[in-house]
């Protein structure tokens, strides 16, 4: 991680960059359409955050939608208060394509010159944002946990400050993109809240043509693609989440968490280690590259508490941890700490809870 450095600005460079900085305006949000079906939840959260940023800067909020038939999603998007919707409907846009989407959006950026561009941190969002960062020669910050408009004494006024937990300990690194535009960031679902806006106003809808040359397409489908069904695990909506980590040791021990989850009406999440060792699916991973959750209770077994994991559970109401090592980082972040071996503690806890439920009945 770099400390605050004072840049020696070449005078010529900074003048052209200053004019660029002052000329570019507006907050843009890429609204991804999921499964040809519905607007992505994370995109709606970004629209509310984008509205907040745009109000502070006194600029407009623009939603960018590319799909086969965009009009059906307008009612959902308009509830979240954009000023303009830039959209394009075409058969080629039915599914994300890594040559068509970046080129179209790049042409829009050159034409309208936005100052800020936000993406939701999904497979599509990360692909699209990385490619646009190369085309626009600008900076991209991944997995932000906070976005604010600040005035910096050295780098200028009204800059977007992007914060993310950094690997080097428990520090939230602050990242700025002072000279290049647009300032880009990707944000995970669940970090911000979504709020509908009840004020009625006129929303401009601008249609953009799509004419991408088919000959340029480099990947061809040999057969018709098939639907891949991902298991939907609603971790973000659960009030009680039970987490398991390396301390559980084996797959059999990890599977006892599911028993406990049934008893408490909870969902099971995990850190990176169970996913690598194939004890559970990828969709259960909680962390910087997994999911962000805000449950009422987070009860975890055998998790040491690395910042990439704990950073996504910060806003849980209560955290109770079971870990044999009281020097583990998770001690600092727990309300209640139990210094026991998770492998031994878990089956006994399940037995005891079953007895309690029998007594009640």
């Amino acid at each position, binding site marked *: 991680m770099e400390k605050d450095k004072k840049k020696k600005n070449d005078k010529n460079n900074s003048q052209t960059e200053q004019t660029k900085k002052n000329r570019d305006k507006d907050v843009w949000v890429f609204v991804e359409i999921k499964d040809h079906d519905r607007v992505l939840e994370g995109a709606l959260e970004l629209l509310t955050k984008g509205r907040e940023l745009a109000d502070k800067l006194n600029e407009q909020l623009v939603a960018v939608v590319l799909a086969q038939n965009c009009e059906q999603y307008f009612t959902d998007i308009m509830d979240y208060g954009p000023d303009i919707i830039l959209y394009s409907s075409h058969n080629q846009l039915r599914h994300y394509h890594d040559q068509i989407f970046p080129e179209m959006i790049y042409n829009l950026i050159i034409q309208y010159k936005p100052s800020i561009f936000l993406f939701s941190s999904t497979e599509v969002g990360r692909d699209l944002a990385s490619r646009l960062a190369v085309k626009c020669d600008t900076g991209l910050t991944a997995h932000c946990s906070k976005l604010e408009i600040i005035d910096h004494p050295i780098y200028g006024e009204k800059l977007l400050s992007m*914060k993310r937990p950094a690997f*080097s300990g428990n520090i939230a690194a602050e990242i700025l993109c002072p000279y290049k535009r647009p300032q880009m960031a990707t944000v995970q679902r669940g970090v911000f809240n979504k709020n509908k806006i009840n004020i009625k106003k006129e929303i401009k809808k601008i249609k953009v043509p799509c004419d991408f040359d088919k000959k340029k397409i*480099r990947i061809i489908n040999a057969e018709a693609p*098939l639907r891949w069904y991902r298991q939907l695990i609603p971790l973000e909506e659960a009030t009680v989440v039970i987490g398991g980590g390396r301390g559980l040791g084996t797959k059999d021990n990890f599977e006892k968490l599911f028993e406990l989850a049934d008893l408490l009406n909870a969902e099971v999440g995990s850190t990176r280690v169970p996913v690598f060792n194939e004890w559970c699916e990828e969709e259960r991973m909680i962390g910087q590259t997994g999911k962000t959750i805000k449950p009422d209770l987070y009860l975890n077994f055998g998790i040491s508490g690395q910042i990439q994991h704990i950073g996504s559970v910060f806003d849980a109401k209560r955290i109770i941890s079971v870990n044999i090592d009281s020097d583990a980082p998770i001690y600092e972040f*727990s309300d209640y700490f139990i*210094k026991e071996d998770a492998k031994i503690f878990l089956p006994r806890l399940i037995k005891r809870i079953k007895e309690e439920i029998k007594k009640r009945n």
Partner: protein
Amino acid sequence: MDKKHELIEDEYKKNQKKKDKYNKKEKQDEFDKKNKKNNKEFNKKIKKIVIPPQEKDFDKKNTNLRIAVCIKQVPNTDKIKFDWKNGRIIRTKENNIINPDDLHAIEFALSIKELYGGTITAITLGPEDSKNILFETFAYGVDKAILITDPLFAGSDSLITSRILAKCIEKKGNFDIICTGFESIDGNTGQVSYQLSELLNIPHLTNLHQFGLNGNKVFAHRIFGHEFQKIQTTLPILVAMKKNDNRVRFPKLSAIQTCFSKEIEILSSRELGLNANECGSKGSPTITITGEQIKQKRKQIEFKGDIDSKIEELIQKLKKYDIINA
């Protein structure tokens, strides 16, 4: 196999008509139950992605494949110790490893070399210490190694890293397959593989289930979004590997003994034609400022007594929060 595919396609079309806007749980559960059986075929994790050449169509002209693997030295985040007072990690030289995703990329390159032939070059950008991971790649079976190092490159962000790697790849020229890891365990951005593919203007493949070559043509099965696709494309390509895609082999003892004596080519900013304003922290569009320590006021109360009394206390709490009905 074909009948099952037809069944799945029929259901796909039926379900396109049902427009459930925000996934009602009951309907999704029914859906999942029906399709769990069909998914078993797709859910089998194939540990060897690369299939051998199909003898009828195999074109022997292109066996001299040139494969490049881009790797990175990272600190071992699992074994790292934190200095909580100052909010920093305690860095020691022993704690540096190859990024786990990059090991899977090396495994992919080695399996292509076994079945189709070719030469593998490992490339890394980092401080001079990164020589150690290049020696490690020789032990796995890589043929050449390039270390790109220069004090000017310190503090580069992901865009500048991708540019430097792209320049090196263009200079060395004519690589057919470039393998990278999907993301690193210290930065976690996952941007470099996409940016490299954009700079070199070559297709980007991830989430592969199967991969085969026939001369200049590539045949692959991959998962792209919510679709399982069977695709065709032509060389050159870039492949980004994730941890669950394949199993990394163990290096041979004989290779480990000889790996430290092999030569590594070293490149600096002069050979690549980059000046100070294009790289390092000066050339990076983003600036990182160390912010505040993340402090959370949690109660940090430890339960005391033996294991049974701790269980009792925990159950009392669960009753208090209305999770178990008292």
